[in-house]
């Protein structure tokens, strides 16, 4: 009786060690509902702000600043998630002010004050797809509930 109890205890302890070892060596961060919601919400804000680029940058400066603050907060959140290097690199490319996605678009808008409507629509498609890639990666990450063993 005692032997059976000890062997069951040993087996459960072994299982616990295996579970903890696997959980400890996850390769990439797990799904984060807040990060996903934030990405999709910022996509809408960013595309709406880009529509304003047919007008003067200075006239829309307050809206642009508000968007940039939200983007910075999202970036900081992503930066502090463990094992999140890939998503962070994607955000870095999207927001790079010397690049050609959202960050670069805002830089160009500030420099030229107004942008061409057709160009804005084409650029919006690319920036929208870039947001979708970040959200798409997040949505494929393993949900914490799926890490259960049974």
């Amino acid at each position, binding site marked *: 009786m005692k032997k059976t109890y000890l062997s069951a205890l040993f087996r459960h302890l072994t299982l616990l060690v295996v579970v903890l070892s*696997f959980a400890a060596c996850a390769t990439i961060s797990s799904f984060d509902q807040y990060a996903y919601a934030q990405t999709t919400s910022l996509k809408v804000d960013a595309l709406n702000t880009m529509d304003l680029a047919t007008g003067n940058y200075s006239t829309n400066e307050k809206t642009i600043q508000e968007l940039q603050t939200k983007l910075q907060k999202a970036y900081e959140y992503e930066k502090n998630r463990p094992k999140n290097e890939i998503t962070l690199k994607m955000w870095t490319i999207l927001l790079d002010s010397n690049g050609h996605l959202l960050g*670069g678009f805002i830089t160009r808008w500030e420099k030229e004050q107004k942008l061409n409507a057709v160009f804005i629509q084409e650029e919006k498609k690319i920036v929208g797809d*870039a947001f979708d890639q970040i959200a798409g*990666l997040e949505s494929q*990450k*393993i949900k914490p509930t799926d890490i259960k063993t049974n």
Partner: protein
Amino acid sequence: MGSIDFNGLLAGVTTLASSNLKDYLNEATADGKKLLESLKADIQIWNNELVEGKISATDLEFLIMAKKEEMEMEGLKQAGVAEIKIDQFKNGILKLIVKTLEGLT
């Protein structure tokens, strides 16, 4: 208490590995093809818009560079998906082991 069926476990792990890899390759190939097709279509549209004077040469150059950066992001996304598949594989092995051990009780 019975003994652990290591052959059964190995067969399970092999099935899990091949199905995971197959799914990943199918998804990555489909995403890559989709992006290349959209690049081809976009360049054609932008070229027409340039000829019609709807966008400038600077706009065109900016859009091409933006597309290049979007492709870099796609590469990163695929790298991320590969890592997710590795984690799913590890999780699958864990479930197999647990199931096998539970069968012994």
